């Protein structure tokens, strides 16, 4: 529910809402503290609170930063998986020149149809996080067919034998990269880590409430600014999490490019374009 909202709205709006809600909560906590815990009491121990806060704040800052780095790396990995899958498709298009013409045409057509399935059906499903198997069945059937056509193909020359080995290797890679991409599309930060991040933020807010600065508005301002900074990191983690969802996500450009290149080089009238392999 909350995720659906996060990933269907622009990042700037999500950032504003996340920071706004967190800052509001922290300010309410400070106002309640100011009301119920006398300033004089807090002011006397401000130095001790501040020095201890250095440890708690430092640990929290480092942990939350590494969570952000972790989701950033996961997104990079997802991008690399999608590019590798598109590269395998491209290799199949190029290598098909070494197959008998009928099989080559069949493989190119199947690869084109598969890319259409990925870009028109699977990508929107991944964006909407509709990860049930039904959305991916057609694509699986298509790669199975490509693989099966190549596996059952009987070469008649040594060149074709080498080409068959190369192409079934490519088909295996395509299948593996597809699985890895679908698994990556379903991955996200575990709930346990979100729980830690939120519990840690609550502790930081608690700490901030214990300070006793001379003016109440300064207390509100420093608390609000600190929590706003943490809110920015939260917004960044949300934007980078679920690598195939939202404004900041892995796109299907690599597949589109592989298909365009295939269409450019291997359409029937341009079939003679690539050099014999």
């Amino acid at each position, binding site marked *: 529910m909350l995720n659906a909202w996060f990933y269907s709205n622009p990042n700037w709006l999500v950032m504003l809402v996340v920071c706004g809600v967190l800052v509001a909560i922290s300010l309410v906590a400070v106002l309640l503290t100011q009301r119920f815990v006398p300033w004089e009491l807090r002011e006397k121990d401000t130095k*001790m609170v501040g020095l*201890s806060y250095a440890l708690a704040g430092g640990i929290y800052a480092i942990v939350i930063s590494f969570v952000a780095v972790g989701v950033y790396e996961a997104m990079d990995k997802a991008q690399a998986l999608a590019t590798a899958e598109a590269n395998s498709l491209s290799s199949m298009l190029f290598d098909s020149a070494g197959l008998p013409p009928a099989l080559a045409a069949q493989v190119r057509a199947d690869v084109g149809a598969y890319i259409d399935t990925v870009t028109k059906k699977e990508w929107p499903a991944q964006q909407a996080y509709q990860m049930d198997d039904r959305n991916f069945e057609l694509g699986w*059937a298509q790669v199975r067919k490509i*693989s099966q056509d190549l596996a059952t193909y009987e070469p008649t020359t040594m060149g074709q034998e080498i080409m068959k080995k190369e192409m079934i290797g490519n088909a295996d890679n395509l*299948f593996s990269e597809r699985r890895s991409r679908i698994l990556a599309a379903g991955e996200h930060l575990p709930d346990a880590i979100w729980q830690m991040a939120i519990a*840690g933020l609550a502790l930081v807010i*608690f*700490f901030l409430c214990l300070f006793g600065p001379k003016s109440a508005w300064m207390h509100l301002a420093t608390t609000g600014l600190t929590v706003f900074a943490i809110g920015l990191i939260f917004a960044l983690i949300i934007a980078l999490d679920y690598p195939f969802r939202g404004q900041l996500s892995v796109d299907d450009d690599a597949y589109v490019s592989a298909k365009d290149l295939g269409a450019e080089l291997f359409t029937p009238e341009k079939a003679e374009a690539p050099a014999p392999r």
Partner: protein
Amino acid sequence: MLNDFYYSHPTWLDGLLVIGVWTGLSVLGLVIFNRLVSAPKRAKDNESVGLTYAIVAVIFAVLVAVIIVDVWETSARADEIATGEANQLSSLVLDSAGLAPDMALSVHGQIDQYIDTVVKTEWPAQQAGHQDDKTYEEGWKTLAKLSSDLAVFEPKTMGENATKAQMLTSVNELIKARRVRILAASDHLPDVVWLILIIAGALSVFYTYLFGANTFWIHMTVTGLIASTIALVFVLIIALDFPFRGDVSVSDDAFVGVKATAGVTAPTSLPPSGATAAPASAAAAAH
């Protein structure tokens, strides 16, 4: 014993317990310390305590960060290892379409059996932390049979020759991936690292005792918050450690998916001759 408890309960419950015990002991320690050394006496040195505490805080924060990154990366790597093993299984199933039908049937049967062994025997054992050799014996036997069947298979055509070469590569990669997965399943943070973490955590809490606060309940709150933050980090490390155990662990989804996606056909349902690896419905759907 303690690990069995952690990884058989939800992370939030582990978190509550670890934070509760660690924080409770820390605050109890402060109460005792406060009786032994009076607050006004300590208050005189608040400044020097604070300045030296900064160094301890930095050391502890960096230590914790390095350990969290390490367990996080180990957990991510374990996921990749399991997916890699499942991918080799898919490759074998797909490529078997280029073999003679009886050989293809045998490969499907053995992979079907291997996946069942991994999902039904090995995964629950890994989740429970039972890493003895007996758990993995059946899987190794199945792989040994698959590998030797492929090795002695004599191709009769150039197509079968190419398929055999590709499948031998895949089966060797599968064996490597399996060994790496089994080793990764027993991977965890060494005890000495835990010992250092706990001592450093206790030291960081003890440092807060040295402050002389004017209001004791504020002192208790500060100590409690510091202890809770440290315990929270411990919980995160526990959750990420042992990559195949607990709430945050590598799942067997990749293996389960192989049967459906690669079209593993159970031996009883594979057509006797002229068979192809993919189910007819799959090929039809492709059109």
